């Protein structure tokens, strides 16, 4: 090194939906720069595989949509990381696949979309709030919670009812969290990473040309740059 910069403090990061798509790319990218990462996904075998492939990462098996699992997930995140600076709510579900018109959407499929895309992240933020706030009290930087959303949360696309409506609720949930948590040094942001070449995109639009889609790796890099900016942004008058 020819110049000296103050050493960056490693972040403590949790990512839901961490075994594929954007989530996996985030786990790789955070770990590559030395951050401590815990990730959550439902499939035990895939969690083990990613944890083995990414040294120093902590794989947690759990379903954020399941009320009874959320505190167990939160306990494992807090236990593994010893604090929490960044929480990325990336796990999500499309609802019915193939995509369905609202008129053809079963209530149960819509409920499942709400459980995964809205209630699960709400519960997990709530369970981790003490950890986020205490980490923020001990830091000059803000804690950051990311809601990964979609243009479908803004634009009413026919056929994307369960997904779009749940993502709109999710984005608004984040905006209210942001207002309420600002005095505690925690910023909540929503980020639309754009159309990416991911398993979820393939499920939604099977005939899309992957070459026209953003690579998750690039979306992860952009998102981490945004998170770093949000962490460094000035805090409002502190709750203390």
């Amino acid at each position: 090194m020819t110049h000296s910069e103050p050493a960056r403090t490693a972040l403590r990061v949790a990512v839901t939906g961490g075994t594929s798509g954007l989530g996996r790319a985030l786990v790789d990218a955070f770990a590559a720069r030395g951050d401590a990462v815990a990730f959550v996904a439902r499939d035990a075998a895939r969690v083990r595989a990613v944890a083995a492939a990414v040294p120093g990462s902590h794989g947690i098996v759990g379903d954020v949509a399941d009320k009874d699992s959320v505190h167990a997930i939160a306990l494992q995140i807090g236990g593994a990381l010893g604090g929490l600076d960044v929480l990325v709510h990336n796990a999500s579900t499309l609802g019915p696949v193939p995509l369905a018109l609202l008129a053809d959407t079963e209530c149960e499929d819509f409920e499942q979309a709400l459980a995964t895309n809205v209630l699960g992240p709400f519960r997990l933020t709530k369970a981790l709030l003490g950890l986020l706030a205490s980490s923020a009290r001990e830091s000059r930087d803000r804690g950051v919670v990311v809601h990964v959303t979609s243009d479908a949360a803004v634009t009413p696309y026919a056929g994307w009812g369960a997904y779009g409506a749940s993502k709109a609720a999710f984005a608004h949930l984040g905006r209210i969290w942001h207002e309420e948590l600002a005095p505690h040094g925690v910023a909540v942001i929503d980020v639309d990473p754009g159309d990416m070449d991911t398993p979820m995109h393939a499920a939604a639009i099977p005939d899309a040309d992957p070459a026209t889609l953003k690579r998750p790796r690039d979306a992860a890099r952009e998102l981490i740059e945004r998170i770093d900016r949000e962490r460094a942004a000035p805090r409002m008058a502190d709750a203390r």
Partner: protein
Amino acid sequence: MKAATAPVQRPSDARLLVVDACGRLSQRPRSALAETLAPGDLVVANDAATWPASLVGTHVATGSAIEVRLAGRASLVADDVETFSAVVFGAGDHRTPTERRPLPPALTVGDALALGPLTAHVIKGLGHPRLVELRFDDDADTIRAGIARHGRPVQYAHVETPLALWDVWTRIAALPAAFEPPSAGFALDWRMLDRFAARGIAFATLTHAAGLSSTGDPALDARLPLDEPYVISATTVAAIAAARRRGGRVVAVGTTVARALEHAAARPGGLHAGSGLADNRIGAATRLTVVDAIVSGTHEPGTSHHALLAAFVPASTLARVDAALDAFGYRTHEYGDSVLIERAHERSRGDAETSRCRAVAAEAALAA
């Protein structure tokens, strides 16, 4: 006092018995805690999240059913989760009062304990048939996952409904550290923290591994609380110094906060940031050096929590508190009502303040 039997952390009718530095008693709704404290005060809470520390399983050598209650850990270091001290019961569950729970089979070093997805081995006896040190066989991530998914919150017979983790995590629960909830913190919610801020009351946290409050065995209960690790941050130490400078009181939410702060302050060099292992007992003979007031549950005479309150007020005041709690029907145990006890002037600031209290008492007598 009667036991609070429903796992509701903040019942709307929760009460707060306030004891001021002159020993006068008054009553408030507990939700008015922020309005009961004074601008400039500092509230310090224990932000420990609670492990589901009750693990049912089998003593492999005999095939007997057991319940292991994790009770202690040497430090709060994240990956220090292999070795715990633990209290072991024979068959049964929380619905049987602990004092009637059978002993486990005789436990010897090397015994395997099958606890759901985890296996642990007894590595040391700790001087009582129920108390051992055990070590889990797996890596830290696997141990945490096993406890998180198989464990249940430690629970006593006065609450019948099986508890979930959200019943025992305070609103501010952060690092998993406690084996029973730091339940004085049930009084706090985020709206109350905002009201503290609005009134100029500062707020800080420490993390203290609150241990078991009871085992049902007199010999073992006499050893409680066991040694408890804690961590106090530089931010919290600075907040305490700032409160001192402006003449504010340091208000501990819970006996664990008092124990950690007084333990840390008694070390060479005084209160400074870092980790420690609290092995102190606070009681009538303790001279408090940091904590000016305490928010606590209502505790029955004879418990270590109750004994700790004797550091704040003379025995005569504590007797009046006990009588008032009984007379007014305060609910006890972790989901019960609370007290806010300020350290008596005669125990802290000497004769000038004591005589001021005498003047206050004389005035009150005159008015009556």
